[in-house]
């Protein structure tokens, strides 16, 4: 801004002289950028629109090239529940996602607080181990873990998927730590001076202040487990009554010999929680996402 006021008169007049072509160029620029933006938005939205239009077609029309349904078969969204025990799968998905999220909150909030607001030897090393665990492909540790759960007789249940969240979830600890770091240290110190124990400082000061961050972390944890495919495939593929929605969806069309319309109706239904959560907590999502990449 200060440099702008130093502009010499000659420069100002040259800007004046070029104003008209410049305005014209600005309009063109506006049109170009906004049509690109519109095209991008369409590109992302169109696949979902096609899925929706196919989902409400009749069985025979879903087999054709048609893009627009001749009749709107809203009943397809109910019919899928007769084709497969979707409510059972929904229950399994909810059990997995909700218990994992609760377990994650119990185990990760204290750990994130200790990593962000307490001083102790080895803290940086532990944090690096958390980052390392976060980056590790789940397939690397699958063999011994499967071996252990199998010897405990727990394969074919959801326990091997849920139990770890009650102890350790690297991504959630990482994200929560990043959020808690942004809480000014003076608040925590003031609580300590007032005689709060660390536990009281965590519960009374940090948790209320980190509520948006905790919400974002819980959302990501819920969606990650809801979307998980490798875990349920590994542990429950032989036990159909333990399948989650994600796992069931992958074989829905082939197993139940249905047309595209019903397969796409299920595909839409499985995306509903994500959309609903996003609509109600858009700011938490965006904040959480940017925190994983930039802040800290």
């Amino acid at each position, binding site marked *: *801004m200060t440099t702008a006021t130093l502009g010499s008169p000659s420069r100002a007049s040259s800007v004046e002289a070029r104003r008209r072509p410049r305005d014209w160029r600005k309009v063109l620029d*506006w049109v170009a*950028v*906004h049509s690109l*933006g*519109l095209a*991008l*938005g369409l590109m*992302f*939205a169109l696949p*979902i629109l*096609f*899925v929706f239009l196919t989902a409400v077609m009749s069985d025979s029309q879903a087999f054709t*090239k048609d*893009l627009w349904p001749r009749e709107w078969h809203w009943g397809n969204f109910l019919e899928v529940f007769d084709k497969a025990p979707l409510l059972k799968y929904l229950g399994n998905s909810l059990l997995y996602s909700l218990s994992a999220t609760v377990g994650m909150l119990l*185990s990760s909030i*204290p*750990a994130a607080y*200790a990593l962000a607001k*307490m001083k*102790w030897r080895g803290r940086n090393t532990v944090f690096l181990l958390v*980052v*390392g665990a976060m980056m*590790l*492909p789940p*397939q*690397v*540790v699958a*063999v*011994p873990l499967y071996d252990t759960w199998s010897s405990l007789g727990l394969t074919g249940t959801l326990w091997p998927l849920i139990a770890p969240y*009650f*102890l*350790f*979830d690297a991504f959630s*600890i990482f994200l929560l730590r990043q959020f808690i770091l942004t809480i000014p*240290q003076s608040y925590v110190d003031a609580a*300590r001076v007032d005689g709060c124990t660390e*536990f009281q400082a965590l519960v009374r000061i940090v948790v209320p202040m980190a509520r948006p961050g905790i919400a974002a972390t819980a959302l990501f944890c819920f969606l990650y487990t809801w*979307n998980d*495919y*490798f875990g349920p*495939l590994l542990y429950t*593929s*032989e036990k159909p009554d333990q399948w989650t929605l*994600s796992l069931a*969806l*992958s074989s829905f*069309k082939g*197993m139940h010999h249905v047309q*595209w319309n019903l397969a*796409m109706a299920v595909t839409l239904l499985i*995306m509903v929680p994500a*959309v609903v959560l996003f609509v109600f907590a*858009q700011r938490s*999502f965006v904040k959480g996402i*940017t925190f*994983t*990449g*930039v802040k*800290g």
Partner: protein
Amino acid sequence: MTATLERVDVVRTTPAKGWSRSRARHRLTVLAFMAPAILGFALFFGYPLIATIGFSFTKYDLINPPEWVGLENYAYMFSDKLFRTAVYNTLWFVVVLTIARVVFALGVASVIARLKTGVGLVRTLCYLPSLAPPVAATLVFFLVMRPNEGPLDAFLGWFGIESPLWFADPVWAKPGIAAVMLWVSGDLMIIVLAAILDVPQEQYEAAELDGAGPVRRWWHVTLPTISPVLMFGVVNSIILALQLFTQAVVAGSAASGSADVTGSTKVLGFPENSTLTFPVWLYTQGFRYFDMGYAAAMATVLFVISFAATAVLVQRMRKATHQEEGGSGA
């Protein structure tokens, strides 16, 4: 993930002597807060990592006790043709996805950053697909790219382009999966967009006064400022590509028309092993053929490679910490 290891200045409540009790209490509190995490890390990462390396020197089928075979599993990799195919496929995804995701996210974010109206709507539309379950996202594209019947074929038909069989064509199956991965890369776009919007406005004004047009401003101001975030995008994409499993399994079995994705009749790698990624082959060996020793050897290889990628990131975080400590200390 360009996070820095910040120094936390705690009020000194522990002067040298006489306070050892409060010091012990401080340590106990840390231990109590960290105990579940330490136990969980040991059980679900520490032990299985060591055990994976141990199993990789054995022949093990889950039923009979492991039998020591030395380096046999590693030696077998060199004669296993499908191992080579899997390595090739995963490398393909590492190269293509890393470049495509970063360039795409940068392009989309640059456009959104310049929008004056409808920013929220476009941003939401770009981000929403990334929340879709990978199974669902893959099936969405399977519908859109259906040979002969799908909307994409109709669209290309307007321009007289004859479409390939997409997911049923060994040449086009991988690009099809890459398209799915770009559709769900909205999270990276949001990160890049936030970085672009964080670029100080004065820098643009200064560049404009120096006579730089929008393109040169983008190249000389935006790009260098957000380069740490792009670096994050590169590492993040490499790790994502190394793990690529779900999309490959779902695309392959949907295209093969196999009835049961979860059962033993499952067709993996269809068509012609073009979607057989490294994790898919590892999974097949370990949990379909129950050759746990060989799967563990492949897991060890995967660990070494992803460890190298992670080490690069951690090194950068360390550097950032030093700069922060040495710098203005803001």
